[in-house]
């Protein structure tokens, strides 16, 4: 869907380690988003980007940072992972801000 690839698809790591998730898109979409999905909370926006080097915080940005050095890649970094960041992470993209978002397959992250 919209050529969105998330990597890795699964990761298990230990508390305190840094983790970087990658979202790659081939549609030249301007907007890119990172969400986490947790039972009872639905989808919550972590950070989003509205262009290269332009990013903004979402609802649950604490403990996360992002970077977008080129249109096709949006990186999500957990500087020092905690168990509360165990979740499924979804990347999404769209060409215009009020248009439907296209989602990646998700990354299942477990922090022990």
């Amino acid at each position, binding site marked *: 869907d919209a050529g969105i690839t998330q990597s890795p698809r699964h990761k298990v790591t230990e508390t305190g380690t840094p983790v970087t998730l990658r979202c790659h898109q081939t549609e030249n979409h301007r907007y890119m988003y990172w969400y986490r999905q947790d039972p009872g909370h639905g989808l919550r926006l972590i950070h989003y980007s509205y262009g290269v080097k332009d990013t903004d915080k979402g609802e649950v940005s604490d403990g996360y940072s992002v970077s977008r050095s080129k249109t096709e890649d949006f990186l999500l970094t957990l500087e020092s992972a905690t168990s509360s960041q165990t979740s499924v992470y979804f990347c999404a993209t769209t060409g215009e801000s009020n248009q439907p*978002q296209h989602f990646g397959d998700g990354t299942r992250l477990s922090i022990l």
Partner: protein
Amino acid sequence: AQRVTQPEKLLSVFKGAPVELKCNYSYSGSPELFWYVQYSRQRLQLLLRHISRESIKGFTADLNKGETSFHLKKPFAQEEDSAMYYCALGDTPLVFGKGTRLSVIA
């Protein structure tokens, strides 16, 4: 503030029964509204959007500005409709509801 409310976390219906998944929104302008569906362990997919006024997989949704609602309906539920459904409001960025899990019982 923009907000989307899906009051039901879980909705169980029997196969062949009508389905209505509720969505209410809070928005000061003219809203763009969407329904997304997520089948088990898959990515979210766009199901429909209000401006297209089309029916996808037998589902329809009508925007009611007076009641600020965008409920998703299907006259006869099928087992394959079992999934997580999210209502979303088109703002910058999109605002999602917390989702409703639909379970269709055979």
